[in-house]
């Protein structure tokens, strides 16, 4: 019961951005992926979500090969993501941004939508209601009617995470979800992430903040120059000399 990456590689011409890695992201757990800038962390997310075609290897969800699926197909399998450089619909309101995240739960038929049948309108109300509840969970209800693009950075992150988890995916990949947040805010996010994991969702947490990862993750992978240099429980990994060298630099 997990998302697996087997021997996955992504080469851009001569540049081996990710060079043959094996990872497992189990449901109901938080898996960390850390590494210095340019290690290839975001490339891994783009490989799983179908943005990049794999040069070698494969990605499987519950044993089904999903390596060749398109971005929207991968999402409909129940694999959601956020972006490192937040990507909201800037002119849409905060509520509308979360509502579009509910697309997979939207049961409106094409005919109902074009003919304005009551079922389409009641579905709109139901989704608005659900999006509103979700905003409450993230503490951003008071911004519901504002344009998402005008929000403070930390709040934009929350909107994006709310949008990603709106359709109750089985796997969520969070690309630096607490960047730009203070201790209190990142603490609030941490408790939301724990709740998600307890409800059976598998989380892949990509972070620079090693302390945050160590506190939250069940298992951590460390990526450097496209290769995994360590994996295991957070305590062991953060004490690993290779990891310390990769982060601090130079030769120990």
């Amino acid at each position, binding site marked *: 019961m997990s998302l697996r990456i087997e021997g996955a590689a992504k080469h851009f011409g001569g540049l081996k951005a990710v060079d043959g890695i094996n990872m497992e992201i189990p449901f109901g757990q938080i898996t960390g992926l850390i590494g210095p800038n340019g290690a290839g962390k975001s490339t891994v997310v783009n490989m799983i*979500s179908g*943005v990049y075609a794999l040069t070698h290897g494969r990605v499987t969800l519950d044993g089904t090969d999903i390596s060749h699926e*398109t*971005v*929207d197909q991968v*999402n*409909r399998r129940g694999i*959601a*993501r956020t*972006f490192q450089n937040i*990507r*909201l*619909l*800037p*002119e*849409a*309101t905060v*509520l*509308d941004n979360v*509502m*579009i*995240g509910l*697309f*997979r739960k*939207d049961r*409106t038929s*094409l005919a*109902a*939508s*074009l*003919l*304005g049948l009551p079922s*389409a*309108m009641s*579905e*709109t109300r139901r989704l*608005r*209601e659900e999006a*509103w509840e979700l905003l*409450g969970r993230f*503490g951003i*209800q*008071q911004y*519901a*009617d504002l344009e998402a693009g005008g929000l403070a950075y930390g709040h934009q992150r929350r909107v994006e995470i709310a*949008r990603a988890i709106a*359709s109750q995916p089985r796997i969520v990949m969070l690309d630096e979800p607490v960047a730009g947040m203070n201790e209190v805010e990142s603490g609030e996010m941490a408790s939301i992430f724990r709740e998600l994991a307890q409800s059976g969702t598998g989380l892949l947490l990509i972070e620079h903040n090693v302390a945050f990862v160590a506190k939250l993750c069940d298992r951590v992978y460390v990526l450097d120059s496209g290769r995994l240099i360590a994996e295991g429980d957070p305590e062991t990994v953060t004490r690993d000399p290779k990891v310390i060298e990769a982060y601090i630099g130079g030769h120990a």
Partner: protein
Amino acid sequence: MMNFYMAYQPIIDFFLIAVGLGYSQQIALKAGVFSIATAGFAAIGAYTSAILVTRYGIHPMISVFAAAAMGILASWILSLPLARLRGAFQAIATLAFVQVVIALLLYFSGFTGGALGIINIPRVVNTGWLLLAVGVTMYVVWSLNRSKVGRVFGALREDDSVAASLGIPIQGYYTLAFILSGVIGAVFGGMRSLYVFNIEPVDFGFAAMVASLTVVVLGGRNTLLGPIAGALIMAILPEIARPLAENRGILNGVILILVITFLPNGVGDELVYWLRRRFRRPSAATLGRTVTKGGANVSAH
């Protein structure tokens, strides 16, 4: 009122046709599809109706439905290569489509009447029918604005790769935008041919394309009021500018530049946005809820 209608009836009718073609143009832009193929769809609809009625004696009403079917077919075929393009590339490719339609109309002169077009089309469309068609179109646009298709179109327009990452099959919805634009364009093209007695290829050329684009640029690309406001300006302007005689085009150009500069969302959209800001009902009130923040209940406004 009746006197006003009698005096301005042709202007009102052409205004309604311009509104319809405006919606065809607007619905493509609403989904982020930079298609300017509306004139081409209108040509296909107009020739379908005209040929069926004049040559095969088909009932005009049925000919408009046939025009709609041809519009769907043509826009679906067009979407196969073009739904993959973006932005300026899409605009240029649809511009080429309009030119191809006109070239074909000229080439198959035995069937289409060539440069002379088709004459003696019965005038069966009147203000009432045009109002009905505009009404139905507005209802469909209104419905989709408030439901799933509108939400998806909005997401496509703002960032289609984000839309894909949320599970939206983006090619399918781009195709839908093409088809909606095509069917609306073809219906109003067909009705136009059943109103103007005769049609020729030049009616659907570059000028027609610019005209329906102008309606949306002047009026607005998002709201239901947009094409109405745009078409209204386009209908009234020539009357106001009558003293300028052959220099009327100058006024058109000046107005367009002023609107783009000072009301970039278009006159209709700006008006609707202003009204919304004025009379906005917050979501909390719409949902009958109170805003919760950090466990404490704060009432919404």
